[in-house]
């Protein structure tokens, strides 16, 4: 394939979902079956094309292979212009295939899941819009169009979370998601502005080479600040602390949407974005990123422990896993983080779709306390769910183990590269989160699929889901097995993925990029085996605790909760973040708005009216002169002129 063909194929992949969106919106309702076959077909075609591109890159297996094309979007008659373009390298090629695959599977799944919804056609349209925007981010070679697609992704997420807008919670959640994301986006935009004002280009490669050549005239502190600001965008989109609050609420959207957007792809866009700008981040900025990531991974895992809604558990788990990826980038384990993005996308999509299947089978019951024993009723779903859970918990032989292990190993390597001390806290938090992950996933699986049914009525009506629903589950769970990524089940870095997408060298001035890269790799390698052992131990411990509590019932869960009541409440109420934000940010905003409106009406406009009144009052005085007799007016005029003449004579 030539470069042109590849680029054209990529553009086709990008545009197919958009076409699907437009068709669905314009004519979806009038098409047979409301056009679901069309949307799904478009996505299938896009996937085939994307897979071809990815296979081309795989077969070339060249770490430096890059094809790009751009065009001038805006030229203001100066020596710079805004170029928009796309870039195909290993990362974007495989991500392209991943996104289109999951989107295709979700389309497939949705055919059954939403078949009786009255906005069925619109739903597929929105999915198309989302996929288009997401692919846009993946393909962008510059910050500007990335930001544009970034916001469009926000829009499609808004539309899909609020898809069932007649539910108050869904509408509120969609607003919350968009606004929270906007906070992050403002930071990202300021970061872009800093780079723009320095280089007058938005192209990532040009910015990187500009920084490398020392054309960044401000101090390194500004570069760090710029990096942190860019990272803010990822904090919003990838639901990192302190902007993580929107993601759990986003579960009000249809479950396939949660799988596509709020688990596998969109939330990973933040990680992808940081991966794209990785080389221009200063070590200080990276440390901030690592701290935020590790803290989020741990915090979200604790929140997941006590939730009862099957989707919310997964949502917190997503936040936690995204924390891993962010931490991985922060500690310089670039390829491990990107690797985790991939493995997570597959197994988390499987989990969400699996939970969708459970919810569907249980007639829209989402509370895990109402479930139980479902493995007999939903055998296929059960097996796939189990595989995906094992991957998420980080059991060996599954994909999640490979990537998570690589990140934690990277964390240890980084900590010793930085000289130990409190830096070791970062990988430790990662390990702790691994234990918690194993526990809450164990709890979920035991409560949902094992034991006795707790709601006999619903249990009796449950039955295995149709083929369009379980086929995606099977595909995704197969992709969660270790051989897909690495033939060595204990070492991800020997697999094709981490070799295809190697870690990158920093271009920041004052940092010896090559030495840092080599040092981190060396120390990470040292940490590998201890990490393998410790993380397997952690996972098994977590699972064992869950087994003891929820299978054997050796310890009563309620009693345990009561004895640890403050901790339990803290976790159950999500560390009170929503309440805190409600009191400070939301209330503060409303008060400020009311004060402004009041000030405007009763101060500024009051002053205006007072001025008017004063003028009117003088008018009342002067009115006496208006006698209605034309002659007296003329007399006034003549007297006036005479006064002027007299004055002129005097002066």
């Amino acid at each position, binding site marked *: 394939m030539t470069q042109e063909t590849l680029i054209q194929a990529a553009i086709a992949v990008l545009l197919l979902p958009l076409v699907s969106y437009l068709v669905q919106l314009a004519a979806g309702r009038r098409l047979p079956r409301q056009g679901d076959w069309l949307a799904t077909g478009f996505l299938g075609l896009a996937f085939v094309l994307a897979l071809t591109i990815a296979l081309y890159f795989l077969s070339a297996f060249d770490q430096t292979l890059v094809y790009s094309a751009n065009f001038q979007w805006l030229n203001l008659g100066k020596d710079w212009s805004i170029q928009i373009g796309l870039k195909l390298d290993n990362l974007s090629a495989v991500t392209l295939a991943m996104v289109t695959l999951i989107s295709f599977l979700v389309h497939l799944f949705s055919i059954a899941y939403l078949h009786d919804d009255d906005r069925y056609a619109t739903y597929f349209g929105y999915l198309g819009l989302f996929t288009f925007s997401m692919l846009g981010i993946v393909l962008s070679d510059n910050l500007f169009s990335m930001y544009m697609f970034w916001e469009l992704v926000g829009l499609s997420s808004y539309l899909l979370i609020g898809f069932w807008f007649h539910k108050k919670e869904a509408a509120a959640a969609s607003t919350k998601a968009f606004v929270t994301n906007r906070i992050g986006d403002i930071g990202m935009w300021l970061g872009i502005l800093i780079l723009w004002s320095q280089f007058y280009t938005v192209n990532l490669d040009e910015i990187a080479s500009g920084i490398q050549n020392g054309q960044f005239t401000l101090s390194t502190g500004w570069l760090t600040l710029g990096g942190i600001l860019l990272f803010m965008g990822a904090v919003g989109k990838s639901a990192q602390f302190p902007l993580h609050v929107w993601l759990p609420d986003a579960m009000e959207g249809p479950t396939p949407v949660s799988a596509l957007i709020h688990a596998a792809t969109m939330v990973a866009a933040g990680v992808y974005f940081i991966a794209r700008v990785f080389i221009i981040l200063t070590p200080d900025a990276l440390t901030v990123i690592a701290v935020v990531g590790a803290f989020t991974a741990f915090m979200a895992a604790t929140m997941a422990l006590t939730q009862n809604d099957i989707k919310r558990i997964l949502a917190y788990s997503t936040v936690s896993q995204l924390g891993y990826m962010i931490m991985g980038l922060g500690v310089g384990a670039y390829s491990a983080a990107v690797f985790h993005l991939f493995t997570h996308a597959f197994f988390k999509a499987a989990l969400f779709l699996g939970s969708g299947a459970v919810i569907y089978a249980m007639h829209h019951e989402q509370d895990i306390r109402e479930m139980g024993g479902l493995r007999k009723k939903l055998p296929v779903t059960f097996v796939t769910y189990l595989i995906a859970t094992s991957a998420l918990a980080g059991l060996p032989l599954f994909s999640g183990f490979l990537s998570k292990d690589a990140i934690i190993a990277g964390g240890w390597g980084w900590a010793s590269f930085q000289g130990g001390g409190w830096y070791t806290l970062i990988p430790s938090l990662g390990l702790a989160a691994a234990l918690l992950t194993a526990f809450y996933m164990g709890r979920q699986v035991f409560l949902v699929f094992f034991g006795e049914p707790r709601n006999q009525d619903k249990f009796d009506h449950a039955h295995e889901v149709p083929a369009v629903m379980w086929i995606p589950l099977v595909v995704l769970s197969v992709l969660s097995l270790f051989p897909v990524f690495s033939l060595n089940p204990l070492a991800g870095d020997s697999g094709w993925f981490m070799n295809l997408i190697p870690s990158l060298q920093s271009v920041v001035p004052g940092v010896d990029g090559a030495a840092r890269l080599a040092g981190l790799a060396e120390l990470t390698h040292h940490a590998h085996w201890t990490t393998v052992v410790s993380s397997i131990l952690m996972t098994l411990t977590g699972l064992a605790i869950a087994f003891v509590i929820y299978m054997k019932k050796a310890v009563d869960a309620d009693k345990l909760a009561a004895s640890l009541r403050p901790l339990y409440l803290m976790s159950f109420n999500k560390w009170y973040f929503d309440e805190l934000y409600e009191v400070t940010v939301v209330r503060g905003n409303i008060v400020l708005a009311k004060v402004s409106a009041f000030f405007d009406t009763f101060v500024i406009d009051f002053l205006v009216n007072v001025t008017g009144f004063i003028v009117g009052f003088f008018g009342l005085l002067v009115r006496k002169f208006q006698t209605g007799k034309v*002659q007296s007016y003329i007399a006034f005029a003549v007297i006036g002129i005479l006064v002027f003449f007299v004055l002129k004579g005097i002066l």
Partner: protein
Amino acid sequence: MESLTLNHFLTLSAVLFSLGVFGVMTRRNAVVVLMGIELMLNSANINLIAFSRYNGNMDGQMLAIFVIVLAAAEAAVALAIILNLYSNYNTVNLDEVDQLKE
């Protein structure tokens, strides 16, 4: 004999103008007021033509002709107004027509 200077014309014009103003201000009869206005216009015309003569260009004469035309139009309109006034109020005494105040 002393020749006619610009000052003579200006004096004449000023006297006429003052007469006009006086008429407009003091008379109660609308028709007389109108005559006062005509006097003022014509005094201005004298001024214009005098200046034109002494400056040696035609601008003033041109303006004077302009004024005459306007004055004719004005007189026609004003007389029509006065007629209407009479038919509405049965008087042309301006003191009795003060509804402009309202």
